[in-house]
């Protein structure tokens, strides 16, 4: 019970610190168990310092910094027991282009490492350009969804002229 929880905490914390640096291109972050001596009753606090900034609790970071830090945490938990499938629904929405590029770079590294297959819902043009293939979902008949294959170069050209 408790030992397993603490062991999991240590592992996740280690991955979290590394993934944060990968996604932010620097900086430093760690997790803390707070509010209780009993790890099974404690709260999980997140302390983060984006590159060049002082260490702060998650709530004091910018919107995009919070999202990228939470993403690091989710992937840290993932890395303790990598799944064969990972599905991400619009996690890139609050990120700027540089952070999106590092995010997609991380996904490529995970694919190489764990062979996990990714399904990534996005509205972001940079993310789309980094995918191995694209599927479009359309509703040409109202209220009825259809799946179509989308040509990657076509999608890039559409983005450039819009």
């Amino acid at each position, binding site marked *: 019970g408790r030992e397993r929880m603490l*062991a999991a905490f240590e592992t996740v914390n280690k991955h979290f610190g590394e993934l944060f640096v990968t996604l932010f291109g620097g900086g430093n972050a760690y997790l803390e168990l707070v509010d209780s001596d009993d790890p099974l009753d404690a709260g999980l606090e997140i302390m983060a310092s984006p590159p060049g900034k002082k260490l702060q609790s998650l709530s004091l970071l910018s919107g995009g910094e919070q999202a990228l830090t939470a993403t690091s945490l989710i992937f840290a*938990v993932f890395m303790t027991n990598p799944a064969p499938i*990972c599905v991400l*629904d619009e996690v890139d929405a609050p990120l700027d282009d540089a952070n999106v590029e590092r995010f997609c770079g991380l996904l490529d590294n995970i694919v190489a490492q764990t062979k996990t297959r*990714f399904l990534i819902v996005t509205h972001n043009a940079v993310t789309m350009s980094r995918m191995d293939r694209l599927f479009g979902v359309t509703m040409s008949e109202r209220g009825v969804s259809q799946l179509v294959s989308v040509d990657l170069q076509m999608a890039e050209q559409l983005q450039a002229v819009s």
Partner: protein
Amino acid sequence: MQFDRIRLSGFKSFVDPTELHIEGGLTGVVGPNGCGKSNLLEAIRWVMGENSPKSMRGSGMDDVIFAGTDRRPARNLAEVTLMLNNSARKAPAEFNDSDLLEVSRRIERESGSAYRINGRDVRAKDVQLLFADAATGAHSPALVSQGRISSLISAKPKDRRLLLEEAA
């Protein structure tokens, strides 16, 4: 275990039979607001045994069945099938004699869900265990729904710790 394909029929806005090939690497899913992208992702969690209607954005389990439009009547049946590659033969013994695992869930209005693995009727628990053994499943931390990141950010520290417990 490797996820190869998902087939949907009558599931939310995917009323017509639809098949998605899941290949290696990064597959992007794009389209306008409200066209069904999140529905597609929810189908994966649902077939793996998700049993909370709230996490499927509904009030009851029947809410995943196609509810109809002005031109099409509602359906009474929704079915999702996952085709899994089991050539590593790591599945539970009773399903481990085949390279292909076909897991399907079917719900009929007001009669609940029925699960099958390779054509055999099984319980929800069997499906949940199959996926849990393969480090996945409806509650896998790798299934990040729309808004999950925001709720993790605004969660109370004690609720955030629950995320860790899924890793333990």
